[in-house]
């Protein structure tokens, strides 16, 4: 029995779209009982429309894609959630260039996709493995994600959302004075939190780069 699976590839780089297509082709060549109907979208609006209009079983989702025109869907995370709401049975394979722990954590906790692949990790073989795993109803995480998860499981720090945001933006090189634009906290409390975080990580009296280094090490970013 041949299973026909409707796949939507969401990526704004035609080269990547082509690569996924090749991978799917390769997979169907190897597994004769799978047949793929492939469609593609390069932005949020297009993708959402396609999921709404036709049957889609599997989505290859990039996180960094052009946002929707109405501004409601800003990233692959938002789009994935919206599509899941439309079709709860939809399987999502997230492939992203982001390899930092913060984004990984965010994607896992918000979207909880069937597979999360970091583009760095992706090689033809593990991409095929991921597909096989997903079709087998088993989540698949690429190497970096697995490492992150391991770190998170082994440490006992409890950081809230603002702490995570703070660390994340700091790591992005945002200056302390500009942090208030990204975090809903006053300047004073941001400073206080930074100090607190340094205390938590046992690196009192160190500067911010050290904080980021340690946070990275502990898997928060």
């Amino acid at each position, binding site marked *: 029995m041949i299973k026909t699976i409707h796949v939507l590839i969401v990526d704004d*780089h035609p080269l990547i779209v082509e*690569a996924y297509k*090749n991978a799917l082709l390769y997979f169907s060549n190897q597994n004769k009982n799978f047949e793929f109907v492939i469609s593609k979208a390069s932005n949020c609006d297009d993708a959402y429309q396609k999921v709404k209009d036709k049957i889609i079983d599997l989505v290859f989702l990039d996180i960094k894609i052009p946002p929707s025109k109405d501004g409601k869907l800003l990233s692959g995370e938002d789009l994935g959630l919206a599509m899941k709401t439309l079709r709860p049975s939809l399987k999502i394979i997230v492939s992203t*260039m982001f390899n930092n722990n913060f984004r990984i954590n965010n994607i896992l906790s918000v979207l909880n996709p069937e597979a999360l692949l970091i*583009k*760095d990790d992706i090689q*033809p073989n593990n991409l095929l493995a991921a597909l096989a795993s997903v079709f087998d109803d088993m989540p698949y995480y690429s190497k970096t994600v697995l490492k992150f998860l391991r770190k998170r499981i082994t440490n006992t720090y409890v950081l809230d959302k603002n702490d995570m945001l703070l660390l994340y933006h700091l*790591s992005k*090189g945002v*200056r302390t004075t500009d942090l208030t634009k990204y975090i809903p906290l006053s300047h004073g409390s941001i400073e206080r939190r930074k100090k607190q975080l340094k205390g938590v990580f046992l690196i009192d009296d160190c500067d911010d780069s050290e904080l980021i280094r340690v946070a990275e090490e502990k898997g928060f970013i």
Partner: protein
Amino acid sequence: MKPLQYFVVLLFAGVLNLQAQNTIPVDSIYILRDLSRDKETYSPQQRLRFAKRSSELARQTGIDSIILNNNLDLAIEYLNLGDLNTYLKLNHKSLKLAIDSKSNRIISVASLNIGGYYGVRRNIDSAFYYLYKSLKYNNYNKAEDRHSVHLYLSYMEGSTGNYAESEYHSIKALKFIDELPETITLQHDKRDIYYYMASILRREGNYKMAIDYNNKSLIISKELKDKLSELHTLNNMAEVYRELDKYEEAISLYEEALYDESIKIEDPIFYAMLLVNKAYAQFQKGNNSNQNIISQLKLGYRINDTLDRDYEKLLLKSATSYYLSKVYQKSQQKDSSYKYAKEAYAIAKDIGENEILLDALLVLSELEDGDKGKAHLREHIRINDSLLQLERSNRDKFARIRYGTGQIETEKDKVEKERDWLYGISIGLISIAMLILVIIAQRYRNNKLQFAKDQQQANEEIYQLMITQQNKLEEGRHQERYRISEELHDGVLSKLFGVRLGLGFIDVKGQTQDDVDKYKAYMGQIQTLEKDIRILSHDLRQDGLSSKGSFNEIIHTFITKQCELHNFKSTFTTEDSINWSTIAEKTKVHIYRIIQESMHNVIKHAEATELSINFKKENEAILVLEISDNGKGFDAKVTHRGIGLKNVASRVKKLKGDFNIASIKEKGTTLRISIAV
């Protein structure tokens, strides 16, 4: 007894001793002048020679004041030698020169000397003329000489019968004397004035006052142990009593005077005068026999007889003759009385003693009957009238002279008033000028303060601008880095990934094993490349964190630029614990300027190849800045500080910091600044 003899004595003894008061150091003139005054060592002839030589030298200097003073000194030497003509000539010369050169004091002194001379010579008109001239300029005279002119004038006015004026001048002279410290010479002068005033008052009929003044004269004479003066005063006093018809008192005074017989040798004429006066007083009292009195008078008369013509002697003789004629008249011996009266008349007329002349005429008119007697009476009246006339005309004349002086004095007052005005205005102007000066100084100070404030403000503004500039630059750089990072991440990296994945699914089975291996190796390379790019992208974003605050950045930029420009190596280190954001902007401006200034010094003078600038914290509150170079160094103790180091020092002072320089020749210099922050 007439005061004229005193006048002469006084004139010769008390001639004004002129002290040279010149600032021109013409030593030899002064030495000679001093020698000429040294009465103890040198004879009058020697002194005259010195004075002449001094005067000669003075003339050569051509300085008026010196010439004048020397001329007067010389004049005095001639006076001492009794050469009155030369004395007069020199004084005239001095006066002329003084008038030309407007030396008011010399005018006063020379006029006084000349006036005195004419007084002695009984040239009354000239005496008055010069004495009043001297009086005009008396204010310019030295304080201790001011009374002299009044003294002379008093004598002169008295001798012309102008008693009121005479008294006025006497009192004036006394006033001047009283203002001065007491000296023997002045006491003598004072005594003379009292004595003279007493005789004037007696003549005016003011006997009470006359006695008073005689008493004063007597007291001073006794103080001065001046026997002769004392006797003269006693004689004068006795005469007062005689005129008051108090013969008892008069006689006792005469006896007191005659008690000391030393006078008989010292001044026999005066002794004789006292004797005859006493005898006549006894006669007037009437309790002694005429015979006895006549014998006494004749004694006096005979003393005179032997002596030659001399005013004093002639006076004595005429007075005695008059007395005798009176006594004989009383005892009805008309012939003898007539004879003596005639003689008294002749001598009195000869020596100009009008008092005796008039009395003698009165006696003569009484002695002779008829026309002759009347003729004598007429002559008496005529002389009396003419005397009154003369007195009156003298008064008028001298009043005119005085009036002239008065005018001068009003002019002087006017000049003085003008001078006062001038002083007032000058003082006013000076005060205004001072006030303006103070205001200007104040304003200058304010401006300076304002300027310093402005400069401070400007400095801070410049610093702020620099910060803003730096921030903008940073911002731009940051944005650009971010953009590149983003581009690398989303564009390049994604495309590379697409390419790699695409390549991965190309079937390479038909190839040799070698090719497949190569293919896989390249794939691996691409993946590594992806990672590199990702790290690069990440680092680009992270870069913002590495900057520890823009002040460091500013300094670092400045140092790097300077080092590039001037071709030397630099190291810049700063301790992490320094938090620039907590340090005042003002302090940072100063630190920046100090670094600028020091670097400038290093570049200009040190010939260094390496420079290190280092910030550290000594403890929580002290920031230390060290600037070292490896240049040629200098001797920090000896070298005069240049403007650069001075500026550094002044900035450190403003920051209330410390500052020292350690320099080793050919090794380099280290500037160490510590500032409390």
